[in-house]
């Protein structure tokens, strides 16, 4: 089942008198549990694509369906609800609030989603990303890799359907980058969440099930790697995810 569906999406920005066609007719289906990467040069439109999937931005034309809901006609408040309940964001610059502790940063989206047991859930997520001993640290006192882990715990705290990651390893060295990718992958396998990862690092893309290539605001190619899954007996969630990927890997659009 497609958790994200884009139908002929266009996004045009007006910069002064110039019009920039950031997305020029993108159609895409992302299935539940998929571990997808989006590659492209800077300015190709991949971040715009991520913003549109994440309901941070609206398309100029075309339809965006998230979890079966067509978001085109929704008001800003409803879009905020979708962001808070169905979508988790991991940003390149981790974007933690520096004066808050790791724990408070992870609890924040749960506050906006109106969830209960925020503290317990945040502690659980921080433990999962290996930061159980750093919960009381302020974000400004954590290392780059630790901050990105907090950001991942935050993105997953509301148990969203989709996690959108914009260059999550962009600021990290190759060792940390590999750690973060394996963390994302294990979360994907254990929790069954859908991941859409924007990257321009081929080694990152290689670890995903499918890679979409974006060029000049259009999807220019697709690469499917069903064997990208780690070896060993897959968990139930993982096999479901795999089945879903296989089902959804027919040509995009």
């Amino acid at each position, binding site marked *: 089942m497609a958790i994200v569906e884009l139908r002929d999406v266009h996004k045009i920005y007006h910069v002064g008198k110039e019009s920039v066609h950031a997305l020029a007719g993108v159609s895409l289906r992302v299935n539940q549990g998929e571990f997808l990467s989006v590659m492209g040069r800077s300015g190709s439109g991949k971040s715009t694509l991520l*913003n549109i999937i*994440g309901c*941070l*931005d609206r398309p100029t034309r075309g339809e965006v369906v998230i979890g079966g809901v067509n978001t085109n006609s929704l008001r*800003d*408040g409803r879009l*905020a*609800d979708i*962001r*808070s*309940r169905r979508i988790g*964001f991991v*940003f390149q610059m981790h*974007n933690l*609030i520096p*004066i*808050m502790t790791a724990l*408070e940063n992870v609890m*924040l*989206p749960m506050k*906006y*989603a109106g969830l209960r047991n925020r503290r317990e859930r945040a502690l659980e997520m921080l433990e999962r990303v290996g930061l159980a001993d750093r919960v009381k640290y302020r974000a400004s006192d954590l290392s780059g890799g630790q901050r990105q882990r907090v950001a991942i715990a*935050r993105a997953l705290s*509301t148990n969203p359907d989709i996690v959108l990651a914009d260059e999550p390893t962009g600021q990290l060295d190759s060792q940390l980058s590999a750690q973060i990718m394996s963390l994302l992958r294990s979360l994907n396998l254990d929790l069954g969440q859908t991941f859409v990862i924007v990257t321009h690092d081929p080694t990152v893309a290689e670890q995903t099930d499918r890679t979409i290539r974006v060029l000049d605001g259009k999807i220019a190619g697709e690469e499917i790697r069903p064997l990208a899954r780690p070896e060993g007996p897959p968990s139930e969630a993982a096999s479901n995810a795999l089945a879903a990927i296989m089902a959804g890997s027919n040509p995009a659009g």
Partner: protein
Amino acid sequence: MISVLRNMMRRKLRTLLTVLGILIGVFALTVMGAMAEKMNLLLAGGVEYYSGHVTVTSSSDSGFSGAPISTALGKRLARVDGAAAAVPVVGLTLKGGQSATFGIPDMVTGFAAGFTKYDKFKLYPAQGRLIRSSDRGVAMVGSELAREYKLHVGQTFRAHGTPLKIVGILQATMTAPDQEVMVSLHDVQQMFLAQLPPMLRKGLKAGDIASAINVYPKPNVNGDLLAARIKRSGIPGIKVSSPSDMRKQFDQMTVVFNVIVMGSAIIALVVGSLSVINTMAMSVAERVKEIGLKKALGAHTVSILQEYLMEAAVIGFIGGLAGLGLGSLLVNAINSATTTTQIFAVTGRLAIGAVLFATILGVAAGFLPALRAARLNPVDALRSE
């Protein structure tokens, strides 16, 4: 709430300066307001004190201790239809030249026996007893005056050269009687006569002198109606002030003091709101990216608006509380340092009003910057550096 305080502490100096801006405003409001409140209390008491009866003075009188009126007129006034009694009263300033003080001057007063019976304004002794018409050479003293001169029952006090033994100290009334030395009508008439210039004194008998005659209406008779009847009665040489005339005079004075409070409120408004607007606009500008992030994490426009308004409200509240505290300290210091009449009263409504005013001011001034923050486009906000 903790996050609000933490956000305020991000820029300690700026927050402090904003709080100071509000503090100055509320400080001015408290001090000026306390002065006006004291006056309003005096005036409100005055309305009660003077408006239960018709005040008849000599037509050539221009103030409290001007030309006297003859007590003999009392009998004619008492016969006017609807009048229950006519009570001569005498008042003269305690110190000759003191009539131009702030507020009400210290007075020596006396009235005929009917006063305590008819006047709606009742006096109660805090110590000792009330004055009787048969008293000679004794006085009861208002609470303010007792404080000012450190007087107690049994002590002897000199007024206009006459030694007076204090037999009672009055409970505070918050108006004129607090600053009065009350003696028997006989005693005050003697004092009145003695202080008149020899030219005027000639031919006057002390027992004939009154500063005014209070004419009390019968129950169910309107004071203004009685005043109109007295005017129509054709009694020569009198000036008639109806209860509503007195009330109007007091109301006019109340307006003046309320204008003073309004003025200081406007100072508070301008100084305080400019600093809050500036601070909130700065903190929104600094936190644009964070606002974008919060929106990406699912914050609604209303949540962001609330966050910033709360911050502005807390700044206003703290500034208001500090301004009130500092203002009250100053006012109390002045009050306890003054030996004469106290001129400030920090009332409950002033205190609550000042803090509430500062808080609302914070919210109102913070509203536009907060709205700007709440309406930021998350994509643009996240992209900003």
